[in-house]
């Protein structure tokens, strides 16, 4: 059903697992990728992206088990993780980054609704040569 999605997460690059293949599978999130935090204008009029790329994974809701599954990767407020996420052009890439757990969780019954997990300081891990 989700074979076209490649979202992964792990505490190591090699240990990244498709969200759908986690012990408690997660549905692919809605992802918002930002190539950089900001930009500056250079002397020749061109722009330079400054700061790291950002992305946010959003779910309309996660079950308690799914939420706990995701929380394992970020036991505290933030944690260094590896993710594979979608880019603005629809392709996927691997990053090391800091996962930031949301400040507030809106729990309704056995679900957490409208949950967004931020990923900062994303450093692209270039694909290995074939």
């Amino acid at each position, binding site marked *: 059903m989700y074979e076209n999605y490649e979202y992964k997460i792990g505490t190591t690059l090699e240990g990244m697992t498709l969200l759908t293949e986690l012990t408690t599978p997660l549905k692919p999130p809605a992802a918002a990728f930002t190539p950089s935090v*900001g930009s500056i204008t250079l*002397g020749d009029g061109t722009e330079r992206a*400054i700061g790291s790329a950002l992305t946010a994974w959003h779910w309309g809701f996660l079950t308690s088990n799914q939420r706990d599954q995701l929380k394992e990767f970020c036991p505290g407020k933030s944690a260094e993780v590896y993710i594979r996420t979608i880019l603005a052009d629809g392709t996927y890439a691997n990053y090391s980054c800091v996962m930031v757990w949301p400040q507030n969780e809106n729990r309704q019954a056995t679900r957490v609704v409208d949950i967004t997990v931020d990923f900062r300081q994303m*450093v692209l891990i270039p694909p290995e040569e074939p």
Partner: protein
Amino acid sequence: MARPMTEGELEKVRRDNQFSKLFIAIHNPAVVFSCRVNQTFDSLDKVVEVLYNGATGDYEDILPGMTAWIGSSAGAWDYGQVRVRKSATSDTLFVGENSDVKWADEAYITVVDEFGIWPKHPRVVSADEVYMDYDVAYDDQHTAFAPVPILEHQCLWLTGASVSTQLDAGDSWCLADGEMSFLWTASGGTLIDEDTSTPIFEATAAGVYRISCTVTVGDGVQTGHRYIFVYDSENMPFLATLRNTPSGSYERGGWDGGFTITDPVGLSIVRDRALCILFSMDFYGSDKVSLGPVAGSENIIHVGWLAGESLNINPVRGNASFEVWGPHQWISTLEEFIDGLEDTPADPTAWTQIKNLTVDKCLWHLITWRSTVSQMMSCYLSGDSRQALALQSGEGDQWSQITRNAAAIAAKPCCDRYGRMFVEVNQQLIPEDERSSIPVVMSITKKDWTGSVNVIRNPTSRISQIVLSGVHYETGTEGTAYFALAPGHVFKRYGSTTSVERLLLNDQAQANSIAGLMLGWQNRTYDFDFPIAANNRMVDICPQQYVAATIAPEDNPRGVSFDGRVVIREITLDWKEKESFMSAVWTGEEEAFPENSTVGDVPGVDEWDSSVPPLPKLPSLPSLPVLYPPPNMPNSNQPKVVVGCGSAGVFYTRDFDSDSPTWYLMNNGIDTADRAKIYKIIVTPSGSIWILCRAAFYDVGTIYYCSGLGGTWVKYASGADFHSGHGCIEAIGYDPTSTERIAFLTTNTSENNDHNSIFHYGNSGGYSNGSAMGSNHDAPADIIFWNGNWYLAHSLWGVFATPWVTKFSASGTYIDSASINTDVGQDFAARFMLPLPSFIFEWDGSGAGGWNEISSAIVATRFTDLSFDPSIQSVSFSPSGNVALAAKASVSIETYKTTDGGASWSDIASVVPAGANVIENCRDDFRFILGGGATIKLTMDAGATAPINKVGNLSLIAPLIDITGIRYIS
């Protein structure tokens, strides 16, 4: 050293997605040894060693330079901090001389593994007994120069089983020739190839590791200490928020900054003045790498020590903000005693001497023997070989002393981001053809800056003329002065005149070159601000380096173009918190090029021939009566300007009234051999100073004069100039009623006949011969001017000579003479006189002792109740002739006093310490200066109370001096 950026580095700083994580490493030093004070203290002043007991740890682990905390509880420093100055014993800790620590019995002492910036004070016991750092006597430290180790701090991340790094002390240097060897130690971890300059250090656990590198060249040894901070995910450094982003300034001399820590964990261990290192984890796109000019330390942004602190207290989340000073600021706080070094042609025998003295040697002495600077930070000196006769910068903080000494070669100290000190010649003052070795770090393109480049154009000259002077000196020579003007004798149209003095120069060409370069630098057209669009930390305010820049006319509304090199003088790092992006603003000045220059004028000498025909001989003006001050009243003002002489030559001060006068040597122009035998010094009313150099007996004798304090001496007359090369100069005197009139006596050493001596009189413009007369050939005589005539006291005829006084007119014509023989044994001897209101006071060096009152008719009345030291200034009367202090002829040389014109004398040895055989009255009945050996004192009440010590720095600039003359000037 600075280097050009590689293509790979340039590509990285022009990438997208640059960001950084900032961390602060704060040194919380390990405890090496702890104990408790085991003694009481009569005084807390000048404490240098402390008995201890209750030790924990091995006292042999204590290294010189480590820090000891003194406190009311274990590990506390509330009583103070001191430096360990040498290895401890089983019951004694030796600390840097201190007066600020609240030492107390049973106080806690904690010696920690920290090496800070501390002063080392000299201790002057006497002229012959000077120590550095309290008890280090001079041996061969200024010949077997201690090397200066060069090594840097590092901050590492342990991400696997181990982390390793290559250390590098290859830039270590030594002023002495010889093979350099290295031996490294570490407080933990593993060292590989520790006997090379580039060992490998490996750590398998997080922690702070001290690395020490002992560098040896011949008998010179010094150990440098730095720290490697190793962190891992369990042992993280503080995360920092920059409060004042680090900024560096060539003018200020280094870098400063500030940061805020909000994480309360561990904040309580942050200690005052702790070493702290701002470092980063940098990303250039997908590359995690740091770029910097120092291999192994590229991730270090700024090295400093905590200076100030402010706490933000609120109920939600407090924080602490810290101010961080670079080493230049800390060295600026090291208040030092006066420094002074003299060149010596032979191997030095004192702390104040260095053979073939250069600025580098002087600075090395300061950073090695007057502070711990060369032990705990990397220092690079100029490499300049210009010699100096003497270098002294006065008292003050050590940074000022370094700056003032470096200025002699147009150099300046500056510290880079890593806390390395470079004393380099201002690169704008380096001749064009010698700039090729200065690297161009990068060429700034439009891809390298953001916002707008500010160009400050200076179309109007700020300096209209540089007037430059300096000397070329080589050991054993008298030195040559050079003067230069830029652009020339005519000013530029606009700007002020600047005088640059006291440079050390190789030759006239260099004087002209520097003058032209200075004018070109001061009047450069462009200054720039470049807001750099990258995390580029390859450029710094030192060491010497350029960046290249191009500004096209079409890029600005004024059509200004520039294509050249820029010297960066200020850098301010900018931190964008949200983007985690560090960038910089570089402020610089365009590379300067020389303007015109020419040979300058010797002061007081016109360019054109201003000589006029000699004047016809004019009749002599009538002699003025000797004017004495009115009856004296106590003068509460201490003398201010005093000149003296002794075995080290002539010295003077303009602040004799200060607690610690600053003395200066003024020997330029005096032959080295003559400096050590100044027999008499006189100062004429014009201010010109005259010295007769001769051994007490049997010497040729040379007269020098100079126009005033600090001037260059001119050789006026030598005994060898007279009597067909067989002459000697026996005596000199001056007329206090004339602006400048002196007299001297030459005698013929080849015969003892009558008319073998000639009386001479003149001024600095020359002298004339007076009458010939008889005198023994080389016993020192004396000349005074009294009641309108010259009086000569001398020995007449042969070995069994007769004491004699001869009177001459003001123009040197013989008037009268008579024997003053009043006792047996007064034959061949040195004679001394003083003009008093109603008689001449005369004594001699014969064995007969006593003294004479001599009338204008040359009738001597002898007194034998006291004999005086056989030297030219052993007696000095006040102008009233009533009060005098005198040195008794005895082994211990006690001081005696008269208040009735010599009718009676009283021993004041209980108040005035013995040994003063040079006495100078200061023109009233109360103030006398007393000298002897290396001691100089002032009494304001004619010895009624103990005199005031006025040695000041004299023992440093002339440590072995034996004072032979003192003259009060004003």
